């Protein structure tokens, strides 16, 4: 398992790019919303209020936040089962997200989808897909639709390092490149495919960047814990897509703080691996950077409080909501709202 410095990453994120103050704070707020909501979700698991499985993006927030800010409101997000952060990044309110995790009728999907399938078409968050690889091909379709209709929209598709080894990845990248589709593929390389170190099952050291040439693309490898570097990379890829120059494959190096999913304490990872990456926490280091560059701590505190309040209210409201009505079981199989397959 390579250390961050083996990968050419600085010991802590460099934060070498510059953005205006408002954006700087929006990025902070966005990451914080993700972090806090997921920590709360984790507490609720422990209380057995969240059923099923759940995959947290704790530690990976910078990627979702940077793209969320860089994207146009009508650009589309396609995410995986590890999709809470990407959902919040598109300004989806916390309450329906939390309610969905709790399986309540007020959930984003009325309790039908659960943690792995968060979707909010209204916010152009086009879904969280739980079969590895498939959604890369679907993102192409949205991009194709934008291309045909001339809308200048871009589809952004997030996935993990392990996903680069499945067939759909290859098909999607080749089609996107051949058709010059306005799509951005973002590989969040957290170095683990569930419990398996990615380098033990992958033929190249950088699962995405070392494969871009196979699709005629330039390699793009970014510090995924540096929200400003990510913002730059996102902006560049989105601009390229919008200008008709086709797809970009971005590899963002990052790390998940916890286990793969709810059931996993993540014990298979070496102590110093975890330590090195905790020192690169995207939020703590960024907060430090903001303060060091002159942002008033009071403003940050205000955001912290704001997010805390939003979260508490969302949690309480979600917990108070009733479970979904069982009639929903036979709803929405078809466009007519029902489930009937016969006359």
């Amino acid at each position: 398992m390579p250390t961050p410095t083996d990968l050419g990453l600085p010991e802590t994120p460099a934060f070498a790019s510059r953005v205006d103050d408002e954006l700087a704070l929006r990025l902070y707020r966005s990451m914080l919303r993700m972090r806090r909501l997921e920590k709360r979700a984790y507490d609720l698991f422990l209380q057995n209020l969240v059923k099923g499985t759940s995959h947290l993006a704790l530690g990976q927030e910078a990627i979702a936040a940077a793209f969320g800010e860089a994207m146009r409101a009508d650009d589309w997000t396609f995410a995986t089962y590890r999709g809470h952060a990407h959902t919040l990044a598109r300004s989806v309110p916390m309450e329906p997200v939390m309610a969905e995790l709790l399986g309540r009728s007020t959930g984003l999907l009325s309790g039908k989808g659960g943690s792995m399938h968060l979707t909010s078409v209204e916010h152009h968050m086009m879904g969280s897909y739980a079969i590895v690889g498939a959604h890369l091909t679907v993102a192409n379709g949205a991009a194709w639709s934008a291309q045909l209709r001339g809308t200048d929209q871009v589809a952004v598709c997030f996935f993990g390092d392990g996903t680069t080894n499945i067939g759909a990845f290859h098909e999607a990248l080749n089609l996107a490149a051949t058709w010059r589709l306005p799509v951005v593929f973002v590989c969040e390389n957290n170095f683990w495919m569930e419990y398996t170190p990615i380098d033990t099952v992958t033929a190249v050291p950088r699962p995405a960047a070392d494969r871009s040439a196979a699709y005629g693309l330039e390699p793009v490898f970014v510090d995924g814990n540096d929200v400003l570097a990510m913002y730059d990379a996102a902006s560049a890829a989105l601009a390229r897509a919008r200008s008709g120059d086709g797809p970009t494959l971005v590899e963002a190096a990052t790390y998940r703080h916890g286990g793969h999913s709810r059931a996993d304490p993540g014990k298979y990872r070496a102590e110093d691996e975890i330590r090195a990456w905790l020192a690169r926490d995207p939020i703590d280091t960024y907060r430090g950077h903001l303060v060091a560059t002159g942002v008033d701590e009071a403003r940050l505190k205000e955001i912290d409080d704001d997010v805390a309040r939003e979260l508490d209210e969302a949690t309480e409201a979600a917990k108070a909501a009733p479970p979904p009505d069982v009639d929903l079981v036979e709803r929405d199989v078809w466009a007519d709202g029902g489930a009937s397959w016969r006359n």
Partner: protein
Amino acid sequence: MARGIAQELEHDDRVVFLGEDVASAGGVFKSTVGLLDRFGPRRVRDTPISEQAILGAAMGAAMTGLRPIAEIMFSDFLAVCWDIVANEIAKTRYMTGGQVSLPLVIRTANGGGLRFGAQHSQAVENWAMAVPGLKVVAPATPRDVVGLFAAAVRDPDPVIFFEAKGLYPGKGEVPDGEIVDELGTARVLRNGRDCTIVALAAMVPRALEAAETLAGLGIDATVVDVRSLVPLDTRTILESVAATGRLFTVEENPRLVGWGAEVVSIVAEEAWSELSGPAVRITTPHVPLPSADALEDHARPSAARIVETVRKTLG
């Protein structure tokens, strides 16, 4: 078939068509010749051999305002993109609580008869029928190909459109003008007193032929063309069984868990008391299809086998 696709490309400019060799070459069965010239490379598009990417593109496009028609050249190849069909396209509306609509059609050449061997000859409409969220259509006549295809393209839900490749060489009347049929409607092709024979796609002409022969043997059979497995026109089938008291199904797919089993089971539950004897399925045996003509012909249900089975059963 080209006519059916052209009609829909003409009718709605959100309709687009993609697949392997469909544009420049006009399709391996020549069923899409001329579409590229008429509608241009933006709406009629050749793809790489990437069935997952093809159907994923169709799905993503359908989510965002287009109405794609995707071709999977042979239905056997649905297996290489089955995830996109069964886990993505079929489930997305449901699991998003109805947020996502997927008006798309997957057309595919299905079944045997051309001596293509086991990997290019299966009838797999039962695979699709087993997956909630898909509509499943399998026409038997050129007219239905056009009319049901139009209905499929205009339907707001994903439809898998199985074209019986054994029937491609077949001819039949297709009236002029726009033809739009209705999904979920079976058609009674022949009315008889003694039994109901329910058939689909390539088996329909065989069932009709068998019925003629049976008539000569004094057995007067009703023949129902199912046309659409999902939605399924159970009413027509149940009414016919109520009238005749006897049910036979003729399926091209291998024996186990075919659509015939579904039809028999519905009748066995809902019209049990109308039945005056066993319900009998006539199917390909539970084997992959062999290639040599003698073998393939023996494997698939023939008019002779239908006649023989009905005759023996009705005694």
